[in-house]
């Protein structure tokens, strides 16, 4: 399985402290992942609204990916805890060669509202594997003045 960031060890990524969670790509395990998100944000001194937003955004991203994941595959969720923001990369191996994350859904609009930045990435599969589908999102620790 290809890594999100090539071969660099997780703990050296731009000085961000890194937490990676891998689960079966099952909706039943998303509560565990969003609990991790919530805990990391609380420890990083996120304000209470931002903690709530990140928890919900991670839930939304994971639920979206689990929907397209191949049976018995893995959901990989990496948290990069930086100063004043957390970046989340979530990805799965898709079950169908042409699987995509649809961005015209209500859930996606909510995700865009919750996160400061959100993007989808698709990577074609090699050999017999399906494509890798991922969502990257960024959340700041508190509201910036607008």
């Amino acid at each position: 399985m290809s890594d999100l960031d090539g071969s660099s060890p997780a703990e050296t990524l731009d000085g961000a402290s890194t937490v990676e969670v891998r689960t079966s790509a099952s909706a039943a395990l998303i509560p565990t992942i969003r609990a991790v998100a919530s805990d990391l944000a609380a420890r990083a001194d996120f304000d209470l609204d931002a903690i709530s937003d990140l928890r919900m955004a991670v839930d939304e991203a994971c639920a979206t990916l689990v929907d397209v994941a191949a049976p018995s595959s893995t959901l990989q969720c990496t948290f990069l805890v930086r100063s004043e923001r957390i970046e989340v990369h979530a990805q799965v191996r898709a079950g169908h060669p042409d699987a995509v994350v649809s961005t015209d859904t209500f859930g996606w609009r909510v995700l865009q509202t919750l996160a400061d930045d959100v993007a989808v990435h698709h990577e074609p599969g090699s050999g017999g594997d399906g494509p890798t589908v991922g969502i990257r999102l960024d959340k700041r620790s508190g509201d910036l003045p607008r």
Partner: protein
Amino acid sequence: MAEPAPLGSESPASEAAGDFLEAAMTRPRADAAVLAVQGEVDTLTATLFADAVAELMDAPETTLVVDLTGVKFLASSGLAVLIQAAHRAEERNARLRLVVTTRAVRRPLEITGIDQLFDMHSDVHDAIGGDD
């Protein structure tokens, strides 16, 4: 109040800890029906939530309340259920009343602007007390 009947005790959702959803309907007044929901509303439990809310929206009472005090998490799938219920209420020339006391519920409703679709209350007594 009767013990809320657990929904989803036989679904795969109950295999993971913490994602249990309970919903119970009461009629504290002749013209008011209150659906009290407890647990986490997410992709696992959204169908149960939708069924419970649909039952409330079919109730003949003029004042309909969803008490979300016991809800610890509310995902977009749950928000979608509430939006649909708001439209159902509109068809009945009423506004659905929500009881919201926690950030876990208030924040998702407010950041998406969906709170505008409902009459928001901070307790059930207040929610059933107002005129229609």
